[in-house]
């Protein structure tokens, strides 16, 4: 059987969308396989709760399937699957957070403006360089981000989605998304530097 080989090859987004248009039920497992690690990881990081992440991520795929059932083949074929799945995940994470708000302090004020202490952590390249030893600290820093910047930051710097995709996912202008992601980056960096001191 070629099942194993098919599972190993990464499926390009457009091929998957085409397969969904052709036969949703048969193609759906390929979608789950292609995106489950990403979606579970994204949800875990957004919720800062690995135990609940799988349940929420399962729900992401179930809702995706139910939505796809109502879409015409043309609409399925035209889907930008990755950002579409992130959008569903983002919404379910928001619901999950609303149902059980996290206890951690936010680094930012409610209006999304950074606090003075971490307002400007200095210029640097627009990327996050990670040492394996720092993974836990980065996750801890992400957990402190406000709801206004966290999704854009995680999607941009951890999930490495394009600004275009994030704008689609969050239904915000690209400029807003860029600003949020940047503010998140500055805040995470500041937090990491504080840890190093």
């Amino acid at each position: 059987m070629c099942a194993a080989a098919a599972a190993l090859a990464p499926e390009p987004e457009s091929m998957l969308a085409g397969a969904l248009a052709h036969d949703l039920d048969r193609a759906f497992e390929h979608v789950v396989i292609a995106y489950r690690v990403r979606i579970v990881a994204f949800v875990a990081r957004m919720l800062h709760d690995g135990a609940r992440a799988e349940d929420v991520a399962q729900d992401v795929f179930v809702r995706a399937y139910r939505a796809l059932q109502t879409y015409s083949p043309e609409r399925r074929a035209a889907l930008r699957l990755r950002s579409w799945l992130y959008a569903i995940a983002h919404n379910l994470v928001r619901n999950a957070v609303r149902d059980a708000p996290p206890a951690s302090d936010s680094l930012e004020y409610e209006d999304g403006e950074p606090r003075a202490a971490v307002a400007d952590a200095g210029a640097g390249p627009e990327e996050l360089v990670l040492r394996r030893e720092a993974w836990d600290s980065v996750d801890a820093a992400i957990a402190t981000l406000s709801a206004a910047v966290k999704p854009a930051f995680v999607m941009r710097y951890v999930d490495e989605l394009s600004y275009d995709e994030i704008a689609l996912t969050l239904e915000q202008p690209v400029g807003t998304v860029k600003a949020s992601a940047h503010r998140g980056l500055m805040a995470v960096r500041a937090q990491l530097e504080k840890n190093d001191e």
Partner: protein
Amino acid sequence: MSETNMREFREAAGSAISPGFTAKVFAGCGLDRYVTAVSPLGDVNVAWNACGVTAVRRAGDDEAFEVWYAERFGRRVVRAVEDDPTSTAARAKLRGEQVDVPTDLSECSEFEQRVLRKAAEISSGNARPYAWVARELGAPDAARAVGNALGRNPVPLLIPCHRVVRTDYSAGGYVFGTEAKRALLEGEGMDLGAVEAITRRGIRYIGCDDGTFCLPTCGDVVSHVGQDGYVALHSLEEAHRHGLQPCASCRPVAA
């Protein structure tokens, strides 16, 4: 101090994903999946959901299988892209390994489920009559219903309904055919021809050298007939005359 790329960091949070993840997603979607596995009777399709294996049927015609499945279970089944713990366990059991395989019998009636669970207790190398199963379930008159329930076994081979035979120890019906049933039993070491031969001579039980008496299909007891300490018995009274106790394994008489 190795630098790691973002992909590793990203995926670390999703790396502990549990093996039943996809099965739970599919349960939420109302879709079951199937793989083709090797069995003693050749290739079979094994379908499953988050609760366990739902169906085992001969492989070959996917479309016919999927149509049959939708009619019987009211759900669509699609060919799986990858195995999960349930299908992997089913493959191992079909290869002859001793593993527990969860089964989902929820489509069967309560009585059918009891019959199938009883059949599942019969170990390899043994066979029991339909009437025996009926009696064990406390419904001694229900031998025919037992036969019907076994005939509807959705998971043959995994639940060994082939080990339940007619009261005269002829093989009786089977979803994969009577010849397949005989072949399976003989492959497990059951000498059905010898059992049928002594049954035709009116022999009902076999007395053993450990002071018990058995059904002729209790393990390989039939192969000992004629040896020292083994006696062919035509009736319960004869067993009692020899001072024999019923075997605790095959339970030849009602408790």
